[in-house]
């Protein structure tokens, strides 16, 4: 995607504010924007959530269908996460198969969910070696104002948390809730100059040099991380990000818990 040109005036304004420890929308560097979550908004999905993170809006839906397990994990269900940056969400998003940004987004969200063991895939076995539940999480950006990583993670987690295994639809027993063990929460920060800010909006993302997403579980343990962007982060930066990820992760878990 080609990025729009940001005016020098806007860039300077953001930098000047950061030097004073504040941001264009009056947030402190560690504040998230307002989070709102609507779950079960799509009846045709087995679980769904529409999440607003400030002006960024994302929808995620879960589909659970019977399928064949992988040969090396005959008793485990399958979990797949996909994401699309559809052109509805921003003038720079283009239609077509997912590009590298969408693939990275999906994989980072997937890693947090998978590595945290959020979904107990062992409980998704129907007939060992033959049939298991396959759980597809599909994420669509609807309105993009920065930090799709955390918005997409929240949407996926909330959709899974409320998902129902549709046993009756496929004649595979009763409907029952998807077995969920914890809530992996990601916290993304970007580096602008020497500052690290949480939950960047679009403009802040545009002028940032590096990005770090850290996903924690209910115990505050780290389950997934991803550094992005062409710049670098120092060891001190990393340490600060990890502290904030634990603190902010706990706050967000309370909001959606």
């Amino acid at each position, binding site marked *: 995607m080609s990025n729009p040109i940001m005016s020098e005036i806007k860039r300077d304004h953001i930098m000047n504010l950061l030097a004073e420890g504040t941001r264009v929308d009056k947030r402190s560097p560690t504040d998230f924007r307002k989070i709102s979550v609507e779950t079960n908004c799509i009846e045709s*999905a087995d679980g769904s959530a529409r999440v607003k993170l400030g002006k960024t809006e994302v929808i995620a839906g879960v589909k659970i269908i019977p399928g064949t397990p992988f040969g090396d994990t005959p008793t485990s269900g399958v979990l797949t996460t996909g994401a699309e940056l559809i052109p509805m969400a921003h*003038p720079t998003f283009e*239609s077509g198969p997912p590009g590298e940004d969408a693939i990275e987004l999906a994989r980072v969200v997937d890693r947090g969910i998978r590595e945290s063991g959020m979904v107990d895939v062992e409980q998704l076995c129907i007939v060992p070696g033959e049939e298991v539940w396959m759980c597809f999480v*599909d994420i*669509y950006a609807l309105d993009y*104002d920065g930090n799709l990583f955390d918005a997409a993670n929240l949407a996926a987690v909330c959709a899974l948390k409320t998902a129902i295994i549709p046993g009756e639809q496929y004649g595979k027993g009763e409907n029952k809730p998807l077995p969920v063990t914890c809530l992996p929460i990601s916290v993304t920060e970007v580096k602008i100059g020497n500052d690290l800010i949480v939950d960047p909006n679009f403009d802040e993302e545009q002028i940032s040099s590096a990005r770090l997403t850290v996903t924690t579980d209910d115990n505050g343990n780290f389950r997934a991380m991803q550094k992005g962007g062409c710049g670098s982060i120092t060891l001190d930066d990393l340490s600060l990000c990890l502290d904030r990820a634990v603190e902010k992760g706990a706050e967000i878990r309370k909001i959606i818990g």
Partner: protein
Amino acid sequence: MSGHTDMVLVDENGMRIDGRTAEEHRPIKIEAGVLNNADGSAYVEIGKNKVLAAVYGPRECHPRHLQNPTKAIIQCKYNMQAFSVSDRKRPGPDRRSIEISKIISEALEKVVLTELYPRASIDVYIEILQANAGTRCAGLTAASVALADAGIPMRDIVPAIAAGKADGHVLLDLNKEEDNYGQADVPIAIVPSTDEIVLLQMDGNMTREEFDHAIELAVDACHQVYDIQKDALKKRYSAKPAKEGADE
């Protein structure tokens, strides 16, 4: 259209499984201006269909070779989200969605004053969040509200609805069961000021008499949809924004 069922779609009193008469459409809800980034947007619910439409432009036309030196082109993309149907839909365009995108673009082209913006593109994105028969009509209905919301000059707003046939009865606005087990489906869109037809498809089996009746029902219902479309647009500017304060 091909399935068979023992389900009674229309009972002896002429009532349908969702309690409608033959000539009733499903409940319709339309909201204009629901997205921030898009130049215009709309959300439409028709029964269990949930559809978002967004408009960008007129803006520079990409890819360039599609530019027309005398008028803007309308590029519509209709997309069903993976969780919008009972089996998961594989993401990405298929032949069905490409065809629907094309006929919706053409239907809108009739009313938009494209000659005002040579070389430009007006991009219309339709996302089906939840599908329950009639998504192309819901999509076109949403798209024309989004175009008007974007301030695009146009002669009129285009409403769309389907009529069809199930259990041998001509019915307005088929739901999923009627569409699956019925005998015909006729989606249609019109320009309300002239009653010109800008979208028409048909599949199934109908006599001339049944078809005429279906068109009559659908055109009449299009005018009802049109009123709801206009209300949604006017409501956006008559309802005073109540929010106060500096944040957000």
